[in-house]
């Protein structure tokens, strides 16, 4: 976000509500970090002044607790259980419906979401990297998903540089953070008295111009840059490399898979909170009168039983094969599909695993333990 320092503005804290008001005036439903059920979730802000200050999230394997930031910053929390994914890839939505007409013939009709314009304030560099991967999947040439596309094009993304990574974060090792580099409309870096603000798209630029910000000083930009470097240096977790394809695929019979399977609940929480996981199931919901039916897409997981069903048998009947599928798809075969790993280092799968299984630890044990 600092590639064109001469175009960066400085937004004092007092002006943050004007940004929200401006986005609302442009027709955006503004979502921002909100405290709910012990976590930070993205919810609609009731008023421009509604962005909470001083929230922080302490994270560790299987552990997430809200705490207070002694410096009362707006974005001193690293991330919550979800950010963009549920807004672009809906947890459940109708794909099409069918009705029986008076003559008894079936009529099929596509159902497209009535997507609102939504602005999300406070997405992270890891979230943007994940969104780019979701785009690669859902919007790939010739296989564009119209439901995803419609939601996606209505998004306005206000990214914020991470200054306080959680203990579960490892975006520096995957190369996806903590400072946003692409994919945002606006990006902010929070300093003691306001934000260094830059635009990353034409619509972002148009919004930024209406705020008439003073240019950011070189000291402010340098402070933000250093803050990002410090946040990267503060991260304690890492993956053993960016391309682990061959290393993992040559360890498919490693005893570690049995060990992790003994601890894994196969609840699928890691896949649901993972911002790049895109697996879904399709189900039919017939109307009670027997004359219509809706075809629904719902989030699914490689940890579920039905996900492994092929005709006549299940390819992944046990937890060992499901955990192996998750890890080897995410970190290995993703390279074949998308040219990079499917992990952006957000650490959600570590924090939100009810038993605290740590993807970085499992990967290290598989790889650094040598060939079985």
């Amino acid at each position: 976000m600092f590639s064109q320092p001469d175009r960066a503005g400085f937004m004092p804290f007092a002006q943050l509500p004007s940004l929200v008001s401006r986005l609302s005036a442009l027709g955006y439903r503004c979502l921002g970090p909100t405290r709910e059920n012990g976590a930070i979730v993205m919810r609609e802000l009731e008023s421009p002044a509604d962005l909470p200050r001083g929230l922080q999230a302490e994270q560790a394997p299987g552990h997430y607790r809200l705490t207070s930031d002694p410096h009362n910053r707006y974005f001193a929390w690293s991330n919550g259980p979800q950010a963009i994914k549920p807004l672009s890839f809906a947890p459940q939505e109708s794909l099409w419906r069918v009705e029986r007409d008076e003559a008894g013939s079936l009529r099929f009709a596509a159902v497209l979401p009535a997507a609102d314009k939504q602005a999300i304030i406070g997405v992270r560099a890891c979230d943007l990297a994940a969104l780019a991967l979701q785009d690669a999947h859902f919007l790939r040439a010739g296989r564009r998903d119209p439901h995803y596309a419609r939601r996606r094009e209505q998004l306005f993304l206000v990214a914020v540089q991470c200054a306080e990574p959680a203990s579960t974060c490892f975006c520096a090792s995957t190369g996806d953070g903590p400072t946003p580099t692409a994919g945002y409309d606006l990006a902010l870096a929070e300093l003691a008295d306001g934000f260094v603000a830059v635009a990353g798209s034409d619509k972002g630029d148009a919004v930024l111009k209406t705020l008439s910000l003073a240019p950011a000083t070189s000291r402010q930009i340098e402070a933000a840059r250093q803050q990002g470097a410090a946040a990267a240096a503060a991260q304690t977790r890492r993956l053993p490399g960016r391309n682990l394809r061959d290393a993992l695929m040559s360890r498919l019979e490693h005893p570690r898979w049995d060990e992790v399977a003994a601890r894994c609940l196969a609840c699928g929480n890691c896949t649901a909170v993972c911002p790049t996981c895109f697996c879904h199931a399709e189900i039919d919901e017939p109307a009670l009168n027997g004359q219509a039916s809706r075809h629904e897409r719902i989030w699914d997981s490689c940890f579920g039983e039905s996900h492994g069903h092929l005709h006549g048998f299940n390819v992944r009947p046990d937890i060992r094969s499901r955990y192996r599928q998750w890890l080897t798809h995410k970190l290995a075969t993703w390279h074949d599909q998308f040219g990079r790993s499917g992990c952006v280092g957000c650490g959600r799968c570590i924090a939100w695993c009810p038993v605290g299984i740590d993807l970085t630890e499992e990967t290290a044990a598989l790889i650094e333990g040598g060939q079985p």
Partner: protein
Amino acid sequence: MKGPTAIPVKPRVAVHKFSSCDGCQLALLNLGEDLLELAERVELVHFAEAGPIDPMAEVDVAFVEGSVSTPEDLERIRHIREHSRMLIAIGACATSGGIQALRNNADGAEWVTRIYSHPEAIASLAHSTPISSHVKVDFELWGCPVSGPQMLAVVNALLLGAAPRDNADKVCTECKRHGYPCVMVSRGIACMGPVTRAGCGALCPGLGRDCYGCYGPAENANTDALAAQFGRQGLEPRAVVRRFQSINSQAPAFLAAADKARMACDE
């Protein structure tokens, strides 16, 4: 309405009650207008809670609520099986024996003498058992109580001539689709969701509390791993036993988990 339908005649349906609280029947009754619409498509020949009474009727589909808990239950379930094309067990009592199956691990006869002034008036079997222990069951709907939408989905599938969708995934999948933060992680609560079958829509975690397993064990329920985590969260082995010995105490996965935790109590 004109046009072909999957089933040209109205299937005859019965809703039977065994040892139970009637809550699953109420889930059906609480469907309100949907139930009226459903009644247009089936012939409800026996459903005591709703009105029609003909317990001995020959039917296409029999929904059975409750466990087999008395000598009379034993006789009746056999009769119902013989007179029903399809038998669907609904609710925790019918699928695992229910809360009353807690007596299976105790001296039930002794309880009776302590509780009732005329114990000789009570005729109950030593064990409360699920319907499938006695007759062939074509489909099981778990839950305490089952949810109305689940019941509708089953009836709907059958009316269309399709197999009902059997969702044995964990409650966690529903929590996540609803966007509820995990209560185990964000509040350190011992939640049964990771080993419990979905179907309730993650009702309890959605209200910020723990799942207590009323839908019974999910497929591949790793109760060992969850019990170990409960221990790390500070639950004593006795409390872990109670987590698994509740509504579905006799479901094999929960029974085995409780037995293991009980062994830890004794050590």
